């Protein structure tokens, strides 16, 4: 082995000359938009892991009704279908708001966010009515292990939606007061991720909690 090849092998032990050259071009920190959104993505995934724990406890406790009412006697699937439609349409409206923010159209942005907000509030209203109805019928979270798990899981999702609506109103106010600055757009990107992720969790809730839960 000559001197030159030896030196070359040390600098690039796997002889991936091309990759190393390309990597030099790409050095340096990622743009702030990517760093922020990626960090928020990690948070969302950990939030989903937390929900997975609640789903696991619900699935384990599904039959532990302690002589109380079961899901089949309690759940009103028409109300669940309406909640699903509200949340799905609000997710779509949130997508419209993302497009409006990217083309810097304040009017369309505010309109789409207002629609998202109204649909989210409709969802929360239906859920609150359902909870009040259950508690009024003596099927509150203290009635059985099954109902404790139900209220923990669905209530936790409802709390997330409530927090999301507060965040949504904040974004509307910030865009109104400060315009489409880079930091505001980053927050909007994170909000859109959050809102779509809530919809994904709701898909699991209506399938597992309501549809499978009312079949047993």
């Amino acid at each position, binding site marked *: 082995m000559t001197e030159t090849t030896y030196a070359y092998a040390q600098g690039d032990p796997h002889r991936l*000359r*091309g*990759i190393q*050259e*390309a*990597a030099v*071009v*790409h050095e340096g920190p*990622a*743009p702030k*938009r*990517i760093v*922020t*959104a*990626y960090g*928020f*993505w*990690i948070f969302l*995934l*950990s939030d*989903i*892991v937390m929900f*997975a*724990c609640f*789903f*696991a*406890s619900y*699935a*384990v406790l599904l039959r532990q009704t302690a002589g109380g009412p079961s899901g089949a006697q309690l759940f009103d*699937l028409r109300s669940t*279908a309406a909640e*699903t*439609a509200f949340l*799905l*349409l609000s*997710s*779509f409206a949130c*997508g*419209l708001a*993302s*497009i409006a923010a*990217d*083309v810097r159209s304040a009017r369309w942005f505010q309109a789409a966010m207002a629609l998202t907000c109204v649909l989210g509030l409709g969802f929360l209203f239906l859920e609150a009515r359902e909870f009040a109805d259950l508690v009024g019928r003596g099927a509150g979270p203290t009635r059985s292990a099954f109902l404790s798990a139900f209220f923990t899981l669905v209530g936790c999702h409802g709390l997330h939606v409530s927090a999301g609506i507060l965040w949504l109103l904040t974004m509307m106010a910030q865009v109104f007061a400060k315009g489409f600055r880079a930091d505001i757009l980053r927050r909007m*990107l*994170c909000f*859109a*991720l959050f809102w*779509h*992720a809530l*919809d*994904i969790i709701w*898909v*699991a809730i*209506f*399938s*597992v909690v309501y*549809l*499978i839960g*009312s*079949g047993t």
Partner: protein
Amino acid sequence: MSEQIEHLHDRPDLAPGDEEEVRIGPRLLGYLTGLGLSLLLTAISFFIAGTDLVWQPSIPVALVVLAIAQMGVHLVFFLHITSGPDNTNNVMALAFGLLIVFLVVGGSLWIMSHLNHNMMPMEQIMRMER
């Protein structure tokens, strides 16, 4: 080889939630497609849950499969997660999250069903305590 790799590195990574497409029309169409597919899958789920047309024990499995399909639709059309090289980091984080989710949910169900199966019937325990 090196030209190909440099081409891949020409494009910077995409933030999660961002999409490559910037024109309004195709982006709108993407959201509309996602909405239509989700509505379809939701309608099938609610139909399957209440029907007598299919073999009853298959219903929970069908509902889980439909739910996973709908989550996939949301991930692709609303969160814009793709298999492209500019999305690798986002997909890797998602894959790790899903691994934990399946371990937690699957592991809990598996262990608890075995515990239930192997536990002494309740009346027998009560009799022993007396």
